[in-house]
């Protein structure tokens, strides 16, 4: 069956359950397509041989009660996978082979899925275009020399290019939702505390969340159901009653109140994005929901806040890379010299830039002016959402201020690159769930996404709204297989 890789997760699971397809059939198909897709540069490390062995083993004694029975999938290379190299897209971890498994991936394998390989990403998830990876740029399957977004760029590219039926990413300021928007796929950033951070290479601990990426909302809900568990190994994991997101998925959103924040109408936003947003408003109304104009007055302060909080946390988290315990080591004349050379040669330019910003804002004499100030503004941003949610059940915005851009277009100006995340960053600062769904194309034929932001722990609600909108939008991704060898 040549069309196996075109099938959604839901279809593949059904075909395995009714024995129309074996795990070996499916795994082989995705491996073959992945091998013909080298030009996308989506993989950092493949696990094909082991995946095929596992698929054969699964077929000998299939457990069809599992949620992901014999389903192969590749994951972002930020998740530690036992005995499989994990690089975080960095030279400094180029030889790192974890001796333990992240909780999120453990949950996935426990439900029967099989690791296909590790996917490219921005170095330490710091980037919005996958161009900061030590392992090179990733191509967007939508068009040649187009970025797939970032930091989960390899995940988005592999998913849209049908090298994996589903995948997971991480999202600190938009790293799941922005690449999903750039590649015409669905990406969910869960509530902070919903998915365990144990075994995920840390970037900014108060913002990082793992989340599912999929071809459609139903697949996304199923994967979220698998990865979201309470985990005592992560002190910020939250013990709340989790829904059976895919079973409870429901397109009836009659009477729901959807907020439209006026501050998201930013200066210089292309008309195409505004039009898409208006179309989205029309769709939710057609589904029987009501839209209400709301205000999130501190929106324009979110990015400056983020660029203090995230680098501050990163500078502290990345102190562990010292060339002693694991990873790359450069030769030095003495211990300090060894540290300094290791970090200078091992980290890329963007990571060094952020460590320097973080170190500066936390340094003596500047802490109050920057870090404390940012924490206070973060409170104001969260208060905005708390106020809004007294009136509405969810919020609808564009996912990004533009469609995907060309490789190299924004690398010279860090601030213009940061502006990509203008609509996604506030959600991380407030710890809320947000989902990006493909909602249309721009004049170049590139996909555009809409974002639905929910109350904390209200993933089911935003998945339902996304599910209802998906039916109305009836989006078709335009993939021409231009890269296939």
């Amino acid at each position, binding site marked *: 069956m040549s069309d196996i890789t075109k099938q959604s997760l839901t279809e593949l699971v059904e075909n395995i359950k009714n024995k129309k397809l074996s795990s070996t059939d499916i795994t082989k198909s995705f491996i073959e397509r992945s091998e013909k897709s080298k030009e996308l540069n989506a993989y950092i490390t493949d696990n094909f041989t082991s995946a095929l062995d596992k698929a054969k083993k699964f077929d000998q004694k299939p457990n069809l009660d599992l949620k992901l029975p014999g389903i192969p999938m590749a994951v972002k290379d930020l998740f530690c996978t036992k005995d499989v190299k994990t690089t975080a897209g960095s030279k400094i971890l180029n030889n790192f082979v974890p001796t333990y498994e992240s909780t999120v991936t453990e949950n996935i394998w426990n439900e029967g899925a099989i690791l296909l390989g590790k996917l490219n990403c921005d170095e330490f998830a710091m980037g919005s275009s996958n161009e900061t990876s030590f392992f090179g740029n990733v191509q967007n399957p939508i068009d040649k020399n187009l970025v797939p977004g970032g930091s989960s760029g390899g995940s988005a590219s592999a998913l849209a290019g049908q090298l994996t039926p589903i995948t997971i990413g991480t999202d600190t300021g938009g790293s799941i939702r922005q690449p999903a928007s750039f590649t015409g796929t669905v990406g969910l950033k869960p509530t902070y505390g919903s998915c365990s951070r144990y075994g995920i290479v840390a970037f900014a601990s108060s913002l990082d969340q793992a989340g599912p990426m999929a071809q459609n909302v139903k697949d996304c809900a199923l994967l979220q159901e698998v990865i979201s568990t309470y985990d005592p190994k992560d002190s910020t994991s*939250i013990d709340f009653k989790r829904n059976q997101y895919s079973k409870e998925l429901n397109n009836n959103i009659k009477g729901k109140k959807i907020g439209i924040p006026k501050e998201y109408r930013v200066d210089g936003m292309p008309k195409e994005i505004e039009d898409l947003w208006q179309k989205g408003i029309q769709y939710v109304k057609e589904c029987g929901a009501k839209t209400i104009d709301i205000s999130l007055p501190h929106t324009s302060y979110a990015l400056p806040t983020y660029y*203090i909080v995230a680098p501050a946390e990163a500078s502290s988290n990345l102190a562990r890379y010292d060339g002693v315990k694991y990873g790359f080591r450069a030769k030095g004349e003495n211990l300090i010299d060894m540290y300094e050379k290791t970090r200078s040669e091992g980290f890329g330019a963007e990571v060094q830039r952020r460590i320097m910003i973080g*170190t500066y804002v936390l340094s003596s004499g500047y802490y109050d002016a920057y870090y404390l100030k940012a924490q*206070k503004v973060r409170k104001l941003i969260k208060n905005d959402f708390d106020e809004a949610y007294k009136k509405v059940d969810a919020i609808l915005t564009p996912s990004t201020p533009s469609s995907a851009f060309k490789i190299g277009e924004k690398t010279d100006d860090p601030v213009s690159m940061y502006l990509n995340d203008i609509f996604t960053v506030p959600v991380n600062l*407030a710890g809320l769930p947000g989902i990006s769904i493909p909602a249309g194309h721009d004049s170049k034929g590139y996909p555009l996404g809409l974002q639905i932001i929910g109350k904390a722990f209200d993933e089911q609600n935003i998945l339902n709204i996304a599910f209802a909108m998906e039916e109305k939008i009836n989006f078709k991704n335009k993939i021409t297989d231009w890269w296939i060898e």
Partner: protein
Amino acid sequence: MSIDLKTIKHISKLSRISVDEKKGEKLAGDLNSIFDFIEKLNELKTDNVEPLTSVAETTLKLRSDEVKSKNIREQIVKNSPQDNEDYFVVPKVIE
């Protein structure tokens, strides 16, 4: 605000990242444009605002203090660039 080469040298020392003149000048330029952008926060009065340190409004759970992993010395040194039996090896610190 302006971050000069001297400040860059100071931050580079604190962050244990070696920076030569050329790289330092590039970094100073980048950091200045980023901090210009960050300065926007000064438009806001925040004297009476409580800082937000965690979005999770739950108290941390307590657990009993017990050993969960045993005999993992080998695993711990497995990824080190240089080790000697159970120890990490680094350049000489004490003469």
